[in-house]
């Protein structure tokens, strides 16, 4: 392996500074891990007792602060559907952009650099600005114009809805998919492409039949990361589709929806009696964390497997 990593500490002169410095940076690392552990322990410890099948499968009445009759089924369905619709938009666009950037784009051209800069910028736009954008563009511009186009007397498209929340989130998570897919495409050995071309395959055939199947795990990782990121986001959906309470489950793309993350916000800030709400609050957070973390763990697992494979190929 690398000589740096195999240097034996004991043969080096012992220095107090070295000990201190390693200890200090090590301590910082431990502290960060401790923060993570504290959050997870707190949520699991306090939330586990309330979590039950009844809790995740019940549609709550208007007063969802009551710990006996409440449930989070509409929130789980709302979050799942907005994330699912988002995936339909973000995956094709993100993957195709990544294909362009890795397989077609001349690395030095201005347009490539602008696309890359735009992707990086998109990743840094504050989530609340996405919320404003979703309201200003999707709801008030696209939606309202669709209503005019179809001669709807009342607002059908021109109001907050699942479709607009999903599209807003799709714009937000585009960089996640692009970056992950690019990484996956780059990990496909160049030799495979050349072999395909040498056998008479066209560039497009090579990409579709050779490169993409090889990169599939990495692309999936990107999709999963985007889903997990979007599932926990609240700010972008505040004005684009989320509802405080709905008696029934959403039926159409133009319906509003209840949402797990937003529900956590509502439970922790609007409760008339926080002591009484705390158990269901913790349980709701636990459900949200299980969803996002399970997805994250899967993504991390696929990714580290992929990196190992990539190292052995090169």
């Amino acid at each position, binding site marked *: 392996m690398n000589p740096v990593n195999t240097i034996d*500490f004991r043969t080096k002169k012992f220095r107090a500074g070295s000990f201190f410095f390693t200890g200090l940076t090590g301590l910082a690392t431990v502290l960060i891990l401790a923060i993570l552990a504290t959050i997870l322990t707190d949520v699991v410890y306090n939330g586990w007792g309330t979590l039950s099948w009844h809790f995740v499968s019940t549609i709550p009445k208007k007063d969802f602060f009551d710990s006996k009759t409440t449930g989070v089924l509409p929130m789980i369905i709302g979050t799942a559907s907005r994330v699912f619709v988002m995936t339909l938009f973000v995956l094709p666009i993100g993957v195709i952009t990544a294909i362009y950037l890795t397989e077609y784009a001349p690395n030095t051209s201005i347009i490539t650099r602008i696309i890359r800069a735009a992707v990086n910028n998109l990743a840094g736009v504050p989530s609340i600005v996405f919320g404003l954008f979703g309201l200003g*563009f999707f709801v008030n511009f696209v939606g309202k114009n669709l209503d005019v186009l179809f001669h709807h007397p009342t607002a059908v498209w021109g109001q907050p809805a699942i479709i607009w929340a999903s599209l807003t989130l799709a714009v937000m998570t585009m960089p996640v998919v692009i970056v992950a897919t690019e990484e996956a495409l780059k990990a496909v050995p160049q030799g495979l492409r050349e072999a395909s071309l040498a056998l008479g395959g066209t560039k497009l055939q090579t990409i579709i039949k050779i490169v993409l199947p090889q990169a599939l795990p990495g692309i999936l990782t990107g999709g999963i990361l985007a889903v997990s990121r979007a599932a926990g986001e609240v700010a972008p959906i*505040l004005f684009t589709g989320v509802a405080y309470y709905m008696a029934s489950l959403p039926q159409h793309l133009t319906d509003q929806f209840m949402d797990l*993350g937003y529900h956590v916000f509502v439970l922790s800030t609007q409760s008339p009696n926080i002591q009484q709400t705390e158990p269901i609050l913790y349980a709701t957070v636990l459900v949200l964390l299980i969803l996002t973390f399970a997805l994250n763990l899967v993504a991390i697992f696929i990714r580290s497997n992929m990196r190992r494979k990539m190292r052995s190929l090169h």
Partner: protein
Amino acid sequence: MGIRRGHRAHPGEWLAEKFIFLVSLTAILMVFLIFAFVTREALPLITGEVSSAAVQPVIPVADMDKIPAEKLRIYLELTPSQFATMDHDTKKLLMETKVEGAQDAPDNKDAKINTIEWRYLLFPYQWSGYDKPVYIWQPVSEIKKYNIIPIVIGSIKTTLIALFFAVPLALGAAIYVSQLASPKLKEYIKPAIEMLSGIPSVVAGFFALIFMATVLQKVFGYESRLNAFVAGIALGFAIIPVVFSIAEDALTSVPRNFTQAALALGASRWQAAWQVVLPAALPGVFAAIVLGFGRAIGETMIVLMASGNASIMSGNIFDSARTITATIAAELAEAVFGGDHYRILFLIGALLFLVTFLTNMAGELVMHRLKGKLEGKK
């Protein structure tokens, strides 16, 4: 990377290539649309077309025919189609109601002020009832006051607290993971720290609100339970993974032979890390901090839940604070669509977009240059 060998030009192939290129322009289009549509809603305010004054100057009914039609339409608050279909007498009637309405207007000398002019947005003003000029954000009151300085200060305050807390930790961990930890340990620590970024911000906000606020209050003994300090620390949780991964990336991209040369000359591992690798990667560390700043100032749910949301001008970190992001999140739903308040919220949103756009550009530029330099391209 990519395929460099030639291939037969196929019409289908050519079409697909163009299609792929067009789709890849989506990212550029989106950045443009975000900028365009967030500023679009704020535009009438920037150009000074609208007035928020509770009492508008009254035009005598006799002057009705002397002023231009467009000005009359705005004065009567009519849409162009309404204005066009309305006959002269109805307009005259409206003029008279205006004059009558002005007589019952609130008896307050501030009522004539257009509070959305730039000077009221940015500079202190002595409102009636106050004994000195003040900065006030008070969008729901008889005289609506939209001075953005208190919430800008609130944003900067919480962001700085977050940076002071998160940067040392994240940098320390980045140095440890990239330079000092064994490769095996690194393989476990890195994903674990990255998992912190998988915690949704609403969960970090919840944790700060329910758990941390009480604990920190017991430790520090301050007065208001929710304040800039609690929000700042929780905000720190959100930016630790950002600063960590960029700094770690920068430190790792310093070529191995830098370290090896230092070690060969008798330096200890930490001397090599501190005196050779860190200075070489310094621009990257700077970029990490800048991008962390951008992330922190744009974070919404954490500050909305943990900062207490009082828009007061205060330098004390243990006072409640209201940030730009929390203001938008909390107030937009109640603001009248197309009203002054609504437009102001889009204006500060556009401001926020601009700030993060610039920090992003700066951060990316520095990282790009650094990598180019370290890889010997320049």
